[in-house]
């Protein structure tokens, strides 16, 4: 395998391989790899027991539960409504569709701080939406539900944008065949369409989940930030930093980094699988 590759590299007549790869690795190391390694090296200042005491402190554990729980619920909401949105955008015609399609990317483009204060204003007890929901006994802003709302917002484009192209490329023939063999629409969806799109759906779900775990800007305004109740893990890191507890801030950061890296590898694996399926099907 490796021999074949190096032979190909020699046959390649295009110039600039050493320069472009050299610069890529240099810049990657300078901006990303060396600074990230600082986090891992800083943690070695703590003994293992100290490290464990920091990352398993009750307040920190409560923040993991909120961060991961709310991220999971947000990603699930996005999986359901993202799939519906992608479906409606690909299959149906309705007025304002192009604008809706473009607006789906708003959470990518809107700065998180702006999203945070806007969601807070809307979902607070006196806000446009909050004033209708609060009389039902449900408080959104300044509770864990507010965290879920913010994390749903920032993860919204992922499922739509991963499922949409797969749905667009589905051939009509298989659905026609299913219909002519007597399947109703629901059977066709569960037996024909869903199996084709679910790897993309899972990828979008994982992307939304991964994005939500690290999110800070949109959450802190709406969360209320009450320790043990509505305090997310990134805020714990900031709080420790402001108290000049660099080593323990870094310890919590390392826990998050490891989990994020594992998720990144899982997502890359998923995407590889989706692409392989796509090329196998076509």
């Amino acid at each position, binding site marked *: 395998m490796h021999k074949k590759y190096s032979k190909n590299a020699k046959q390649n007549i295009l110039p600039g391989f050493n320069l472009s790869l050299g610069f890529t690795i240099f810049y990657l190391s300078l901006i990303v790899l060396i600074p990230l390694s600082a986090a891992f090296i800083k943690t070695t200042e703590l003994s293992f027991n100290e490290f464990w005491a920091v990352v398993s402190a009750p307040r920190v554990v409560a923040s993991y539960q909120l961060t991961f729980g709310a991220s999971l619920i947000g990603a699930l909401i996005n999986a359901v409504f993202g799939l519906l949105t992608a479906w409606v955008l690909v299959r149906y015609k309705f007025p304002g569709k192009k604008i809706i399609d473009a607006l789906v990317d708003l959470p990518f483009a809107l700065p998180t701080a702006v999203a945070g204060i806007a969601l807070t204003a809307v979902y607070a007890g006196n806000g446009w939406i909050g004033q209708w929901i609060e009389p039902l006994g449900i408080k959104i802003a300044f509770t864990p539900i507010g965290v879920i709302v913010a994390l749903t917002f920032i993860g919204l484009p992922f499922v739509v944008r991963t499922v949409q192209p797969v749905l667009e490329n589905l051939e009509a023939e298989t659905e*026609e065949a299913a219909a002519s063999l007597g399947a109703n*629409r629901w059977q066709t969806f569960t037996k024909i369409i869903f199996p084709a799109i679910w790897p993309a759906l899972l990828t979008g779900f994982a992307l939304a989940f991964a994005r939500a775990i690290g999110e800070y800007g949109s959450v802190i305004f709406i969360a209320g930030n009450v320790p043990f109740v509505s305090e997310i893990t990134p805020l714990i890191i900031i709080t420790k930093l402001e108290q000049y507890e660099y080593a323990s801030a870094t310890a919590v950061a390392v826990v998050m980094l490891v989990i994020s890296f594992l998720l990144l590898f899982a997502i890359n694996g998923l995407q590889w699988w989706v692409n392989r399926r796509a090329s196998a099907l076509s």
Partner: protein
Amino acid sequence: MSISTTLPASQYSNYQNKVARSRATSEPVWARWTLIAIVLLFLTLFLIVPLAAVFTEALRKGFDTYITALTDPDALSSIKLTLIAAAIAVPLNLVFGVAAAWAIAKFEFRGKSILITLIDLPFAVSPVIAGLIYVLIFGLQGWFGSTLLDHDIKVVFAIPGIVLATIFVTFPFVARELIPLMQAQGKEEEEAGLVLGASGWQILWRITLPNVKWGLLYGVILTNARAMGEFGAVSVVSGHIRGLTNTLPLHVEILYNEYNYAAAFAVASLLAILALVTLLLKSFVEWKVARDAQIDEKS
């Protein structure tokens, strides 16, 4: 064409699908409109209402208050710093993106998939941690803290730190956009240019970059939007020194925490306009790509 244009390459098969889609492979009218209504309600609650709220809150106290908030010296200096950070981060990541895409798309080498994963790393890292790592290196207690202090250079709680954090969080955008495009283009055109006597730089300027110009533009738009809007990473390294190390998003936070809501939303509305312009440019680029693809198909 009435079909959405996310993946321009799929335009043609789309069209076939649409023509072939008959009553047997579509839903009844009531189901269609129920689904559309659910989606519109969801997007209204999560996207449209919050976006409208930014502008309503910004203008709640009148247009004069709005203008005053934007022309306040602290607001102006935060606009300036945001522009400076983007003006440094975007070109650097653009050069990196082109170099990385050239190496990855045009050559085979060991460890390529690892390199692609490593380029994605900044996407997976929480912005707060992105800020933290630069504090660990350049902060007073950090690796180079005492050296920097001796030479009276400030990185953290100063502009260089903000620029570094901005570069980190926008690191992968251009590369991610260009790599699949340049892989799809292959290298025949470049090799033909080489055979005809073009130098490497001529090939890059005359063949490769013109071929990927829309993807490049899209990558730059995304990088710029994120650079100007970054909050978490910049918040950690900035030190929140008013009028000195505050970017636009940080200025929004300060005003908001002072209960100066009208001013906070006024400054936020600038960033919301930036986001809307970004979406508009994105739609334009997608339309251009789809049109170019159609022209290619006809010729």
